[in-house]
């Protein structure tokens, strides 16, 4: 029936003869310390070896898409903050871009710079928090996460000053941003960016080369590139396998073609590469931030023609995507000309990156499942929406 060569085999070829009585069924989650929220996996084990793994979703299905169909376009903006709640500003940007394409709104230059700066700061938060949670999954709960959150608090202070909230920013508007940078904000951001490499060095020293980490991550969970592309995997996970596909380069949205940065690539795509990719991307994000903060122009922060109330985009549809910290974050909007979207669809990177979780885990130990899940970097608000 299914001829997809990238499909997982029905049973693990390593253990073809399985005695049903000897198998152990384990339900990991929805309340489990390693599942990053309320994700659940039904794992079937033969001894310690995974022979089947079925993810179960929906424990955080908050009906965002249905609610968005009942409210105005602007009212959905604060809801996008709560999708991937570690990085609200990139969600804002993706949604604002989709509406701008849908209605044909121009964005002023300064607003684009502000968006790039906030998005890259968000990437710093996401990747450092990823390192912390990933280490936590391997049993190093504490140090790495605590250091990551110490730096996160500094970035959140900046966000609080700019957007008025630590996490739920509700900052971007169709055609720009809600408000301009407060006085002295850019200088404070530069100071943070200049101090950040020191923290990165520290974090790298803490974990890179640690023999336990190497043993647990190297050659764990690798899949061939073709399978990853076919499975819709995007973002750092895809680049860890050596595919040079970064939407900031492939389809330079905003003003990304103005900045010089490199796309880090891995070799094998195992969990170690996925961890290292994040470290390298952090350094590239810092490079973008330095350029953007240095070149920040004057001008309006929002398109003066954009409307807040009674905003009605013309009939049509638009799909817009950005390179979110976790992968390709897209919004597909269909407008029938009224104040509410007719259809509002989110393409969540975390959800689609989980497509191949079973393939990655088959034949490995249960302990590796936790490491692989951690390396995917999911946020449940986005997986289940």
């Amino acid at each position, binding site marked *: 029936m299914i001829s997809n060569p990238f499909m997982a085999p029905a049973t693990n070829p390593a253990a073809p003869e399985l005695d049903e009585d000897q198998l152990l069924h384990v339900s990991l989650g929805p309340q489990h310390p390693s599942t990053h929220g309320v994700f659940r996996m039904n794992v079937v084990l033969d001894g310690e070896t995974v022979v089947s793994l079925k993810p179960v979703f929906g424990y955080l299905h908050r009906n965002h898409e249905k609610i968005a169909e009942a409210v105005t376009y602007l009212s959905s903006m604060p*809801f996008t903050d709560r999708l991937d709640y570690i990085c609200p500003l990139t969600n804002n940007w993706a949604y604002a871009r989709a509406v701008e394409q849908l209605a044909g709104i121009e964005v002023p230059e300064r607003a684009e710079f502000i968006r790039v700066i906030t998005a890259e700061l968000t990437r710093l938060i996401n990747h450092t928090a990823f390192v912390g949670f990933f280490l936590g999954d391997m049993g190093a709960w504490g140090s790495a996460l605590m250091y990551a959150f110490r730096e996160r608090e500094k970035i959140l202070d900046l966000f609080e000053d700019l957007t008025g909230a630590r996490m739920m920013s509700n900052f971007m508007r169709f055609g720009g941003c809600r408000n301009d940078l407060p006085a002295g904000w850019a200088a404070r951001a530069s100071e943070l960016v200049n101090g950040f490499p020191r923290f990165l060095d520290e974090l790298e020293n803490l974990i890179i080369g640690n023999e336990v980490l190497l043993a647990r991550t190297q050659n764990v969970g690798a899949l061939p590139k073709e399978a990853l592309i076919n499975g819709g995997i995007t973002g750092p996970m895809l680049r860890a396998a050596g595919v040079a596909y970064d939407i900031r380069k492939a389809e330079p949205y905003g003003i990304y073609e103005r900045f010089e940065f490199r796309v880090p690539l891995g070799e094998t795509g195992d969990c170690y590469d996925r961890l290292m990719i994040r470290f390298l991307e952090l350094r590239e994000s810092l490079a973008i931030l330095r350029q953007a903060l240095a070149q920040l122009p004057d001008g309006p922060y929002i398109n003066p023609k954009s409307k807040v109330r009674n905003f009605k985009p013309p009939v049509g549809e638009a799909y817009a995507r950005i390179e979110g910290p976790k992968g390709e974050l897209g919004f597909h909007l269909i407008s029938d000309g009224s104040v509410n979207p007719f259809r509002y669809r989110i393409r969540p990177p975390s959800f689609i990156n989980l497509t191949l979780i079973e393939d990655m885990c088959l034949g490995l130990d249960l302990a590796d499942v936790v490491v692989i899940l951690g390396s995917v970097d999911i946020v449940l608000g986005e997986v289940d929406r």
Partner: protein
Amino acid sequence: MAIDPKLAEDLKSQGVHVTSFESLINWGRASSLWPLQFGLACCAIEMIAATMAKYDMARFGAEVFRPSPRQADLMIVAGTVTKKMAPQVVRLYNQMAEPKYVIAMGACAISGGPFKDGYNVLKGIDRFIPVDVSIPGCPPRPEALLHGLITLREQIAKEKLLGRTRARHADPNAGAELPVPTFGPHDLEPTFNPDLWNPPAITRHASES
């Protein structure tokens, strides 16, 4: 029997500490609340932030997040409880040993919050389990969580161990498990626990609506 506070103060100045057995027990309980490591959504990130260096929940003796409900005293419902998740939350609550307390952190846990019009969102966890302290906010700042914790500690300090108004955990007749809702064809069955959830009647005048 309450102690005269003036007398207690006098004795304290002479190096003698006097207290009642009840306050001593409550003091012990309030000072080492072990929360369940249980994050649901956005608020969980702020809950983690509250345990980290800047806010440091350990100063309140509540940093020992236990992965198992059997070892926990405090359930911080941090995030949206969906209908698919609600039976599991009730089950976790049932598994916790008395005395147990519940903090509903954030709008979603209190009332469904911004997502309350969703078909899969439970409009407040207090429909199924008793909530001691509610912290509004979306998400509440870490300081707000600490404030909620302080409020809970004040409540625990006032608990009675004897008499008719004694706390639930001191009452041997009160220990029944809460019923776990089941999945129905359109909604949870039942949609709320009538023993726990009695919302006040809302009266609106005809001209208002």
